[in-house]
């Protein structure tokens, strides 16, 4: 056991940070941009990352990566989110859609999709949640019925981020209504421009373009769009969701916000107030706890283990960190934090969605409980 980064890892972080500091304004938030502008700027930026080998460093060389250790992926996640997450939705491509295709794709799917993802010239959305299938994802009802060399897809997805700007949808649909509900689900890699797909905005208090609903009406896709064996999509997704739970280094971003809150307090000579001190300290400690728990996830990945349990624990700690930093922001800044796009306001959006996006907080607790308490919960 030791807690040192290697010289290569330290050099990677330094080089990456210098590049990002040079390319991006301080405190820039990509998610504050309107969707089209966000997509355009993000696409341009990730292509710069791709040219430097920093978009898919953990991928195998044959798929456009550089087979770097998981720790490089962690450093990338921390530095990206500290700079406003310029990859926007592309972190999803890199962290788990691409790896799903590496795991289960045909040679043709790999050649086409992995090349494009690793070059950073494509945006994806994730067609998981439905009106009646949220945390209980396996209850999804969207159907894909085989018809010769095609599937015909009908159904509705909801809360889909990036659907308005995505070129492809990583879609889960039911291909068998018999037996266990988890066993009848398949994955489809569907072009969003396919006839019969209708994308609508859902207005919300979150950043522009945060939510969409996506309707599928007699959408015909070739059978070659299916990823992996029919009816085995759920197990593929489960395998890769640990990547999604750790894909955004929320603790690192929240810690950066906390530094800004502390600076705000220092400028007003508040740092000798005991209430201010304890609020800041508690929030900082929460971010640090989450950081060390995600290190455990990356350590297990490095050793080739399945990091499910540690990823659930990390996610629990990360949600807490987001919320405690939000509490610090509004406790300490008071009404100043109410102004739109103030950093307290931005922190609120991250904090209030932390326990919902990427699978509900309670599902993480349930999953950990099954392991620690030995119950099905």
């Amino acid at each position: 056991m030791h807690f040192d980064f290697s010289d290569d890892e330290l050099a990677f972080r330094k080089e990456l940070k210098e590049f990002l500091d040079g390319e991006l304004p301080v405190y820039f938030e990509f998610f504050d941009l309107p969707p089209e502008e966000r997509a355009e700027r993000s696409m341009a930026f990730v292509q710069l990352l791709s040219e430097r080998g920093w978009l898919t460093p953990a991928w195998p060389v044959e798929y456009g990566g550089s087979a770097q250790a998981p720790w490089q992926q962690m450093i990338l996640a921390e530095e990206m989110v500290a700079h406003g997450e310029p990859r926007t939705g592309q972190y999803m491509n890199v962290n788990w859609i691409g790896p799903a295709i590496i795991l289960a794709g045909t040679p043709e799917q790999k050649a086409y999709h992995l090349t494009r993802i690793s070059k950073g010239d494509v945006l994806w959305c994730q067609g998981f949640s439905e009106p009646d299938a949220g945390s209980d994802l396996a209850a999804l009802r969207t159907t894909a019925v085989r018809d010769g060399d095609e599937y015909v897809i009908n159904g509705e997805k909801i809360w889909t981020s990036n659907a308005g700007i995505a070129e492809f949808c990583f879609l889960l649909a039911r291909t068998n209504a018999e037996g266990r509900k988890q066993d009848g689900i398949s994955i489809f890699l569907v072009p969003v421009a396919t006839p019969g797909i209708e994308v609508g905005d859902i207005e919300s208090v979150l950043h522009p373009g945060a939510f969409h609903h996506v309707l599928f009406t007699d959408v015909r896709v070739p059978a070659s769009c299916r990823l992996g064996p029919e009816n085995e999509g759920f197990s593929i997704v489960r395998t890769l969701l640990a990547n999604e739970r750790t894909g955004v280094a929320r603790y690192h971003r929240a810690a950066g916000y906390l530094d800004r809150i502390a600076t705000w307090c220092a400028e007003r000579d508040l740092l000798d107030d005991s209430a201010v001190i304890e609020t800041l300290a508690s929030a900082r400690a929460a971010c640090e706890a989450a950081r060390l728990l995600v290190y455990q996830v990356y350590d297990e990945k490095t050793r080739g283990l399945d990091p499910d349990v540690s990823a659930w624990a990390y996610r629990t700690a990360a949600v807490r960190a987001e919320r405690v930093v939000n509490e610090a922001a509004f406790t300490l800044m008071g009404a100043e934090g109410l102004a739109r796009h103030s950093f307290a306001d931005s922190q609120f959006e991250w904090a209030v969605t932390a326990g919902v996006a990427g699978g509900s907080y309670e599902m993480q607790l349930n999953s950990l409980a099954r392991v620690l308490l030995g119950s099905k919960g």
Partner: protein
Amino acid sequence: MEMTLSPTQQAVLDACTTALGRAAGPARARELRSAGGADDRLLTLLGEAGYLDVALDEESGPLTAVLITELAARHLALAPVGARSLVAPAVIAAEQLPEFVTIMDLAFGGPVRYAAQSEALIVLDGHDARLFTAAEYTTTAVETLFGYPLARVELQGGGVDLGAGSGDVARRWWRVAIAAEIAGTARAALDLTIDHMQGRVQFGKPLSALQALQHRVIETHVLIEGAMWMAREAAYHGAPAESSSSAAVAAVEAAGRTLFEVHQLSGSIGFTDEYDLTLSSLRLQTLRTEAGGMAAHSRALVAGRWGA
């Protein structure tokens, strides 16, 4: 970065676990609670086996010492393992290390853990520290519910100056030791609570199957895990001001949550002398207050992080 134990660390901890399994544990803690005092027999055993000096060993270092401190707490050791294995070696020359040593800070009042049982006392006075032998201070025992022998201290002599800045150094390691002790003690309390929940059937199912209770256990578990890893990392890096105080803040928060959750989830049996829960749970209250508690750890963290 490597979060698993090296073969050497694993071997040391396995052997230490065996020793603690024989010499510490609930029965011994119960015996000491009845008799009063601390477990000097255990401390001697650990000292003779070399476990208290691992921080000075180049290969093992303070990280192994913090693992042993955590392990001893988990086994309900009633001895100042953290003070002796982490704090004392940082400020006292190896050849002069007393076996039984504890710590107090003049900045804070209140009774001191193990003061009446120790052969020496590290006294923190601002940036500096002095070492007092037992002949140089008197103690008055304080009756307490909270799991450790406590006494008020009156210094008589002048002690030995431990050098400029030794108080700051000792204080940082003290925070690491407290965090490790809390992590081990809280883990013992939560493990016992989980055992109880798995066996206690209400409404036709074990408490451990009730989701509302499961969530509270898991949130507590994650707080303890976070504090545990923070203590380990802080020890590995030599107890920097920021990370040692950050570990202590996380640990004190975990201790507070654990103390009340384990008692709530254990019900009335948890308060009884016949049950083992209070052997660990009540100690958390003492550990939460040590070294100035949350207020002092928070000040140190804010100073270390933001220079206030």
